[in-house]
């Protein structure tokens, strides 16, 4: 059992709005605790519709921004719906200086209410939350990213901070579902789009060109994926088939986002058995080999 003294990093003047409690000796494995989160009242700096269905939200979040690791998320309290109590989780797309941004799709009442918010309004945010991706090492395997939908947003920081570039496979139903292609290319990544209707890139599921690529050359590569569950499952199968390591971001339904309610659990293999682990805390990123896709009988 690890015993460590946790302290709040980067306590500087510009984090005055961030709330963090005094240091405490914890007796718990750090993996089992929410990461270095703060709760802060953020200000909406910009808010725009970027495609037919996606919005880009930029927040001044001086407490959260400097702490973000790739694959982590923010938990937003959308105030305008007092009958809808819970926060909503969103991957942190970009983090620069004291701002973070979120790329989101309107799917229900929370995101609809969010879409109505204006620059200048405030939004309570909890973050950064979750354990994200391990950064590729300069001399490690070549990173291959696989994204569906807002998965691109979850992978962007990884692409930005990775010491080496690689390929991004991105899929969607149609052309407008392919997000941030230019941004990834600008970082020096090769982008391989696929659409189900063939309106852009290869026609088919994103895992099809991925498989073709791995058949061509698999050695010394590692997969990093975020997207719908069927896609993640297919990526896990490919990783297994090709004997590759893979990290998957599993976006389970969440409630507290910080490890206390046990809503977001995922069945995970352990020595000789399995246990439920929390996507918000031990995850959202899991080692593909550990994830059980069915609950054992």
């Amino acid at each position, binding site marked *: 059992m690890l015993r460590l003294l946790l302290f709040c990093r980067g306590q500087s003047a510009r984090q005055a709005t961030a709330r963090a*409690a005094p240091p*405490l000796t*914890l007796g*718990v494995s750090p993996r089992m605790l929410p990461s270095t989160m703060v*709760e802060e009242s953020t200000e909406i700096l910009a808010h725009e519709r970027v495609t037919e269905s996606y919005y880009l939200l930029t927040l001044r979040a001086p407490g959260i921004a400097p702490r973000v690791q790739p694959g982590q998320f923010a938990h937003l309290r959308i105030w305008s719906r007092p009958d809808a*109590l*819970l*926060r909503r989780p969103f991957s942190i797309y970009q983090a620069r200086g004291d701002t973070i941004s979120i790329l989101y799709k309107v799917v229900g009442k929370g995101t609809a209410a969010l879409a109505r918010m204006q620059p200048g309004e405030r939004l309570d945010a909890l973050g950064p939350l979750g354990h994200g991706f391990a950064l590729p090492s300069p001399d490690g395997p070549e990173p291959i990213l696989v994204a569906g939908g807002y998965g691109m947003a979850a992978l962007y920081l990884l692409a930005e901070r990775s010491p080496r570039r690689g390929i991004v496979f991105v899929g969607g139903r149609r052309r407008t579902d392919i997000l941030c292609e230019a941004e990834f290319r600008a970082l020096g990544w090769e982008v391989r789009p696929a659409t189900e209707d063939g309106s852009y890139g290869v026609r088919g599921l994103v895992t099809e060109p991925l498989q073709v690529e791995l058949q061509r050359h698999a050695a010394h590569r590692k997969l990093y994926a975020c997207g719908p569950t069927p896609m993640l499952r297919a990526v896990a199968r490919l990783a297994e088939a090709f004997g590759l390591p893979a990290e998957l971001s599993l976006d389970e339904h969440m409630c*507290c986002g910080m490890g206390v309610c046990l809503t977001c659990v995922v069945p995970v293999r352990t020595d000789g058995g399995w246990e*439920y682990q929390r996507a918000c805390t031990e995850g959202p990123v899991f080692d593909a080999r550990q994830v059980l896709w069915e609950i054992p009988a």
Partner: protein
Amino acid sequence: MNLSVQLGPLRLQNPVTVASGTFGYGVEYARLLDLNQLGAVTVKGICLRPVRGNPTPRTAEVTSGLLNAIGLQGPGVDGFIRQYWPFLRQLRVPTIINIWGTTIEEYAEVARRFDQLEGVGALELNVSCPNIKEGGAQFGTDCRLLARVVAACRKATRLPLITKLSPNVVSIVPYARAAEQEGSDALSIMNSYPAMAIDIETRRPRLANGVGGLTGPCIKPIAIKLVYDAARAVRIPIIGMGGIQSAEDAIEFLLAGATAVAVGTANFYAPRTALEVIEGLQRYMQRHGLTDVRDLIGRVDMPGAAGPAASENTCTPAESRMQQ
């Protein structure tokens, strides 16, 4: 200004704790707030063995509330002591450990185990969790079974005992009295209310478990009445909970007769609620010229209030489903 209250032998520096299952094991919140400012930390329900809990989805948001069927996932007594106790025992405020079992013997055994652990503040008997098949809710909706669980735990430990009652009864009075008679030092009221929600597009229940427990602001008026009813019927103190989001909500519980309050579901969306309740309570007392929080307890001005109806006085067969 005195904020401290007594839960039987247990003294709290202020009347605000958190509800079991909504605050993990305390440590998860340590970065967001100073736990030593709370009245007590109450941890998630623990039983003898590790429990995996229910399949997902385990929670669903409903109008002004939350439905849950977690299924009491937890590390068990040993896992808890190993993983979480080293942290909790450092706190200057007491830890209330919520316990449960599937049989009376299991309840007593868990109580006995914690009796041997130094520094525990109190044990809270969860006899009312609606989310497990065996035991659980049954103990909370059968007055005689409840009496036996409390009696068995009372024998098993000298720790302060808090009995957490189920709201899912005709009248809370016989349950409150039974717990008091068998030596419970305090009551917690209320646990979640059995409820259900259906996704009309998939036509499936929104929880994998089908039914779950309703919590959050939507249940507050039910909880206030239960606390009020129980407070008139027993002499032991009550921890009131159910939908507390603000100091105003907490004060409503104190006026209804609660000696302390617990913040539950609100921790999930507003983690600093418990501290805000303490601050707001102090402001309210100042504004009203009160120097002792105990002067609020049960001070609702109920016109023509008397004791509970005679028919509610005892643990009659009416409140017992068990045929003995």
